């Protein structure tokens, strides 16, 4: 059977089981997402994506998932927190037995 017969051509029905070719391509998608797939393999994968609806859908969803994770807002720390943390540590060291290993040093 020719390899292309395994493809889930765009517009066709989704099969119950994934074809070996699609399985191979989908195994390579995470590496492509990381940008660490070699050039030749990437060209083969992209050629497959252009004709396979199922794999293209998986690829788009993987990219969207990463975009969603990375869409969470970030913010620069506006103040040095070390004085606050150190002061809290010193208080705890003086007043409690939370740091048994430290007590041994005193």
């Amino acid at each position, binding site marked *: 059977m020719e390899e292309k017969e395994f493809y889930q051509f765009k517009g066709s029905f989704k099969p119950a089981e994934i074809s070996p070719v699609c399985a191979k391509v989908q195994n390579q998608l*995470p*590496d492509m997402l*990381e940008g*660490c797939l070699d050039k030749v393999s990437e060209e083969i994968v992209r050629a497959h994506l252009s004709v396979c609806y199922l794999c293209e859908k998986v690829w788009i*969803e*993987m990219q*969207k*998932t*990463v*975009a*969603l*994770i*990375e*869409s*969470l*807002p*970030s*913010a620069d*720390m*506006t103040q*040095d*927190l*070390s004085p*606050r*943390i*150190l002061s*809290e*540590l*010193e208080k*705890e*060291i003086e007043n409690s037995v*939370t*740091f048994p*290993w*430290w007590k041994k*040093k*005193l």
Partner: protein
Amino acid sequence: MECPDDVLIAKTLDGDISCFNQLIKRYQRSVYNIAYKALGNAEDAQDVTQEAFIKAFRSLDTFRKGAVFAAWIYRITSNLCIDYFRARKPAVSLDTSVNPERSWMQDSANNPETLMLRESNAEYIRKAIMDLPENYRNVIILRHFQGMSVEEIAQLLEMPQGTVKTHLYRGRERLRQRLAPLIG
């Protein structure tokens, strides 16, 4: 030249608290960044940052010689974020309906409705990440919150690159399923 982490830890264990202060200064931004992304507000992020370093200090004597301090403090932070996330109310349920409107991520409008939609979707994403098993969650945080490469994560967590890739893949797969309403 910057003093290596293991030397600072050894000196702290010998009673020099200023060395631990150097560790705080070195990692506070990364810790704060993880906490802010996971919790979405500055106050909680500051509290988690403080608590993470205090927790690390408390058990510094149990820190394995040769282990990576950064990996340890990030793991403590990640676990604290879960505690904070679960403790605060109202918690977002994954059953709660989210708005899958395609444009919400790119929408730069700052009207109250858009801001509320963006925040509720962000909370939904945070919850999905916080619900991941620890080994998947940690690599997702390092890769996508901290922007570290697979190679860097492997070095930090002292695991093969293949394992990092597998955890990343499985973590993202779970997220892909959980975030389906937003992915469309």
